[in-house]
C-alpha cells in the first residue's frame, strides 16, 4: 500500500492491528483454558477469528486457514438466514452444516454478532472439534456412512444463546444427540466463553478509539494484506503448474490441480478431479476453497495479517459432483483429514513449483506433504466411563525439507499431540513405544524431517476391548513428497496386529519394542471401524518429510551424524546416499564416497 494513501497514521495502525490479532489469540487461550476435551485443551483442534459486519475475515490467530475462511462463509449464511432484524446483541449462533459453510459436522462453528451502541459492527467465530456428533461411528469420522444423513447432527444455523441467555432447550437437545453429552457441553460452553471474550475486547476498542477509527484500521489491514500479496504474486513470472494427488478408498481416487498465474492473480483449477466418492472423503466447494487459502497462507502469505485480503487475489475452480465439490447428500465426515489434506498438498505443490521460478522466493520452497493416517478410539475407560479420544499423532509428522536445510523432525502441523503419560492416565491404553522411525525420512541433498512411529495396546479396559476408527489420507502415496530430485518419505500407515505376544513379553519383563518379536497377524487398515482387543496392537507411522534435491549431493558429514543418531541405517547411508562410513569408528571415507557416488549414478543412467 502506498503510504500516502493511508487513512490512518502508521503507529496507530500498528497498535490497533496488533490488538485485533491479540484478541484472536486470547480467544484461542480461552478455548484451551475453559474447554474440557483433549481436542481443545491439548491438541489445539480449534479456530478463533473475528470478522467484519458482512462476514469478511478481519483477523485470525494461529489456526487452520481453511476454517478461518469457512467460518467467514458461516457468518454470511447466518446473516442471510436470520436477517439483521433477528440478530440481537449477545446472541450466539451454531452452524455445522457442511452443505452451507462447515467442512464436516464434528467441527461446530459458534458465531457471535458484535454490537456497539445497538449497531451490528462485526462478528467473532470459533470452532472446536466436538468429541461426538451422533454419527454412525463414535467421534464423527464414519467410514461406513453412505450419505450425510448418517454422519450426525446437522445444524444450518440456530441460536444457542439469545440476548445473553443460554437456550437450555437447544443446549440439551444438541448434547443429548451425542454419545458424550457432558464433553460436548463443555465444548460448546468454551466456544461461548471465547466469543464473549472477543465481543468484550472489541467493545472496549470501540469505546476507547471510536468506531470510525477501528473501522478504518480494519479496512486498511485487509487492503494491506491484499496489496502485499498481489505485489509478491506479480514479482513471479507468469506460468502454469500441475500436480495430481491420490487417495485410496475402495480404489484409487485422483485430485487434479493446475495453478495458473497471470499478473497478480492466481487460479487454482481442479478440473479433471475424479467424481465424488461414496465414502466420506468428499469436500464441499467452500472447504476446497478454504484448503487452497490455507496453502497460500503458509507459502506466500505466512508473514502478513491473515484476513480477507489474502482471499481476494485467488480463485478456485472445482467442478460440481467431484471429490472437491460434492453434491448433497454425499458423505463428508472424513473430509478434513482426507481430501482436505490432499487439496492442501496439491495446492502447496503447485505453489512450490511456482516459487521455484523466482530468484527471490525459491529460498522459501518446502517439500510438500500429502499428510498422514490417523486413528481414534472409544469405549469404557479404566474408570468405567465412556470416552472418545483422537490420537492426534499427525502432530508428530516430519516436515518437508527446505531448499536450504533439512525438514524438522516431528515438525508436525497446527495441532499438538499430548504426551504418552497423559494418554495412559486418561484412557485405557499402554504405549509400547513412540519414537522416530529409522530410514523413514525422504532422502535428499536436504532430507525430510522424521515422523513418529508408535504402537499401543489396551490396558485396564473393563470390556477387554475398545473400538477404533482408521481415517486420514489412505493409500501409499500419502506422506511427504520429494522435490527437485528428493525422495518421498516413508508412507504413513495404520496397522492392526491381532493376537500378538505382547502380554507374554510384558509378563516376562521384556520390553515389547521390537516389532519382529511381537508376532501376530498384521493387517494394513483402510478406512474402517475396528476393535482393539486384548493382545492386539495398533501400529501407526505418521507422515515423513520429503527430501529436497539429489541424495547423492548430501553433505557426507550430515549422513554420518544421522547414522550415529540411529536415524539412518548404515545400509541406507551406503545405498541411498552413497556415503562410505566405517562400521566401527563411524569415520567417513571421502575418497570411497566419491567413487561410490560416481558408480551409483553411472549404473542408474545405464539401466533400462
Amino acid at each position: 500500500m502506498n503510504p500516502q494513501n493511508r487513512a490512518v497514521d502508521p503507529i496507530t495502525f500498528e497498535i490497533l492491528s496488533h490488538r485485533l490479532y491479540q484478541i484472536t489469540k486470547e480467544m484461542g487461550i480461552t478455548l484451551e483454558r475453559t474447554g474440557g476435551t483433549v481436542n481443545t485443551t491439548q491438541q489445539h483442534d480449534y479456530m478463533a477469528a473475528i470478522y467484519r459486519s458482512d462476514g469478511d475475515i478481519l483477523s485470525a490467530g494461529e489456526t487452520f486457514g481453511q476454517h478461518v475462511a469457512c467460518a467467514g462463509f458461516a457468518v454470511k449464511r447466518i446473516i442471510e438466514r436470520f436477517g439483521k432484524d433477528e440478530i440481537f446483541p449477545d446472541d450466539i449462533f451454531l452452524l455445522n452444516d457442511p452443505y452451507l459453510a462447515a467442512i464436516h459436522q464434528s467441527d461446530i462453528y459458534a458465531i457471535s454478532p458484535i454490537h456497539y451502541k445497538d449497531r451490528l459492527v462485526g462478528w467473532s467465530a470459533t470452532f472446536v472439534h466436538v468429541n461426538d456428533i451422533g454419527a454412525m461411528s463414535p467421534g464423527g469420522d464414519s467410514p461406513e456412512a453412505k450419505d450425510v444423513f448418517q454422519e450426525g447432527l446437522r445444524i444450518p444455523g440456530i441460536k444457542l444463546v439469545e440476548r445473553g441467555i443460554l437456550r437450555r432447550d437447544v443446549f440439551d437437545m444438541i448434547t443429548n444427540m451425542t454419545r458424550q453429552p457432558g464433553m460436548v457441553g463443555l465444548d460448546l460452553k468454551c466456544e461461548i466463553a471465547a466469543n464473549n471474550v472477543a465481543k468484550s475486547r472489541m467493545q472496549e476498542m470501540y469505546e476507547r478509539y471510536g468506531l470510525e477509527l477501528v473501522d478504518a484500521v480494519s479496512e486498511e489491514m485487509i487492503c494491506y494484506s491484499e496489496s502485499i500479496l498481489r505485489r509478491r504474486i506479480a514479482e513471479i513470472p507468469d506460468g502454469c503448474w500441475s500436480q495430481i494427488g491420490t487417495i485410496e478408498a475402495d480404489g484409487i481416487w485422483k485430485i487434479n490441480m493446475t495453478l495458473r498465474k497471470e499478473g497478480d492473480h492466481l487460479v487454482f483449477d481442479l478440473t479433471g478431479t475424479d467424481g465424488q466418492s461414496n465414502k466420506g472423503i468428499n469436500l464441499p466447494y467452500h472447504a476446497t476453497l478454504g484448503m487452497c487459502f490455507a496453502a497460500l497462507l503458509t507459502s506466500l502469505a505466512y508473514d502478513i495479517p491473515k484476513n480477507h485480503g489474502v482471499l481476494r487475489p485467488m480463485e478456485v475452480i472445482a467442478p460440481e459432483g467431484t471429490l472437491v465439490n460434492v453434491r448433497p447428500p454425499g458423505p463428508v465426515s472424513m473430509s478434513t483429514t482426507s481430501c482436505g489434506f490432499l487439496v492442501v498438498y496439491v495446492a502447496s505443490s503447485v505453489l512450490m513449483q511456482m516459487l521455484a521460478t523466482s530468484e527471490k522466493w525459491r529460498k522459501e520452497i518446502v517439500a510438500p506433504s500429502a499428510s498422514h493416517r490417523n486413528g481414534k478410539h472409544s469405549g469404557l475407560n479404566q474408570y468405567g466411563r465412556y470416552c472418545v479420544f483422537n490420537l492426534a499423532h499427525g502432530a508428530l509428522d516430519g516436515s518437508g525439507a527446505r531448499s536450504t536445510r533439512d525438514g524438522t523432525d516431528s515438525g508436525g502441523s497446527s495441532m499438538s499431540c499430548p504426551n504418552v503419560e497423559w494418554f495412559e492416565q486418561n484412557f485405557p491404553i499402554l504405549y509400547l513405544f513412540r519414537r522416530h522411525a529409522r530410514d523413514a525420512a525422504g532422502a535428499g541433498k536436504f532430507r525430510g524431517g522424521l515422523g513418529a512411529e508408535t504402537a499401543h495396546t489396551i490396558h485396564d479396559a473393563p470390556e477387554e476391548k475398545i473400538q477404533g476408527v482408521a481415517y486420514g489420507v489412505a493409500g501409499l502415496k500419502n506422506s511427504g513428497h520429494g522435490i527437485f530430485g528428493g525422495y518421498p518419505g516413508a508412507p504413513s500407515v495404520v496397522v492392526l496386529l491381532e493376537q500378538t505376544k505382547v502380554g507374554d513379553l510384558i509378563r516376562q519383563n521384556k520390553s515389547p519394542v521390537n516389532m519382529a518379536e511381537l508376532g501376530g497377524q498384521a493387517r494394513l487398515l483402510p478406512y474402517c471401524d475396528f476393535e482393539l482387543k486384548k493382545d492386539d496392537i495398533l501400529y501407526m507411522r505418521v507422515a515423513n518429510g520429503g527430501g529436497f534435491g539429489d541424495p547423492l549431493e548430501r553433505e557426507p558429514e550430515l549422513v554420518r551424524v544421522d547414522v550415529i543418531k540411529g536415524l539412518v541405517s548404515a545400509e541406507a547411508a551406503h545405498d541411498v546416499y552413497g556415503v562410505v562410513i566405517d562400521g566401527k569408528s563411524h569415520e567417513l571415507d571421502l575418497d570411497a564416497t566419491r567413487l561410490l557416488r560416481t558408480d551409483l549414478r553411472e549404473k542408474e543412467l545405464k539401466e533400462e
Partner: protein
Amino acid sequence: MSYPFRENLEAFADAGKNWVRCTRCNQVLCQVGEDWRKACKRRTFPPTKAGPLMVDLLGHYLLEKIYCPSCGVLLNAEMVEEG
C-alpha cells in the same frame, strides 16, 4: 535474460522464443510451455531404492527418476504407478 525454471533448470530468451535449459551443462531441453520431461532421460527402479521402508509399495509403485539427457544431473524423483 534468464530466470529460474526449477532446480537445475532455467528459462532463457533466444531468437524471439523462450527456452528451458540445464543450468549445469546448458543443454536446451524444450520451449517454455512444453513438457521438459519428454526431453529428459528417464529410469525406473524398485521403490525400495528410496529406502527400506518403501517395501509396502513393491508391486504397486516404481521410483521414477528423471535426469538431464546431457550431463545426467538429477531433476526429479517420484513414485509412479507400476504398469
